[in-house]
């Protein structure tokens, strides 16, 4: 009985050590239908801290549906 309880507890808890896929902090998340490497609007990342921009337009300043090959 004790062994059965132990098995059930393990099944219920699952594997919490498995890493979730994550985007690198410095990479913008672009719209899923944009070609790879394209300049495209990004999805909102409300948990990101605001940072000063670089020399190129950031994806949040690109309008919806915009895509220009780099």
């Amino acid at each position, binding site marked *: 009985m004790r062994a059965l309880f132990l098995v059930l507890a393990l099944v219920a808890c699952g594997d919490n050590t498995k890493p979730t896929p994550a985007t690198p902090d410095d990479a913008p998340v672009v719209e899923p239908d944009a070609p790879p490497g394209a*300049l495209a609007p990004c999805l909102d990342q409300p948990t990101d801290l605001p940072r000063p921009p670089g020399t*190129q*337009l*950031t994806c949040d*300043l690109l309008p*919806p549906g*915009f895509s*220009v090959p780099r």
Partner: protein
Amino acid sequence: MQRVTLAAFAAVTVFSGLAIAHPTVASGPGFANKGSQKITFGLAHGCDGADTIKIKVDIPTTVTSIRALYSDFGRPTITRDPNNANPQTNVRSIEWVKGDTELDEDFAFYEFTLRGRIADVPFTKILFTVTQTCKVPNASPTTVVWDQPPESTVGEPAPVLNVVPQRVAGWNKFVLTTAVAAEDVPLYFADAQIVWRGTEAFSPNSNTRAMIQGTTGVTELTTDLAVGDEIWVKY
């Protein structure tokens, strides 16, 4: 020769004085097709050192549903078009007259406000003709009429209300119903983050403008906007 030089200097001095002193719309741009908007006129100067004792603002046909606010001068009075029985559209002018005596010098700043509805005329400029009356103690009143467009080289410039479309925070798509000259783009998009037409972009922010210049495949928006152009604007 010396007389000519002095005359030119005097002309420049007088012209500069008037240019600084002209009444302005101090409340910022108006929104097209929107009611209950306050439009405030700022009057920084009187006339050649004389204090202002009266001001009359003529109401253009593109501003309706007029309500006049009390000012430092006290109660407003309005004039209606006798041939128009509709109170929403028949106010032709508002006048404010100072209740007490004029100041000894011209040092006061006055504001006059009306509330009204602006017609659906985005990306246009509405001119208000203003008649200003001034007086110094123990002298006759003088009157200045401010009724000329900003680019005029004669007369006195009227206050201008820049009309922009209604918008929300974030991305807004507009299809232009009127052309916008390239030199007016900064005027109408002064508070935008960025404006796009295709792969051309404009921003009033110099840092964003530098990024526009540094981004491959993107060019600066420097030409006139035409009727039918579709633009994306982020506020």
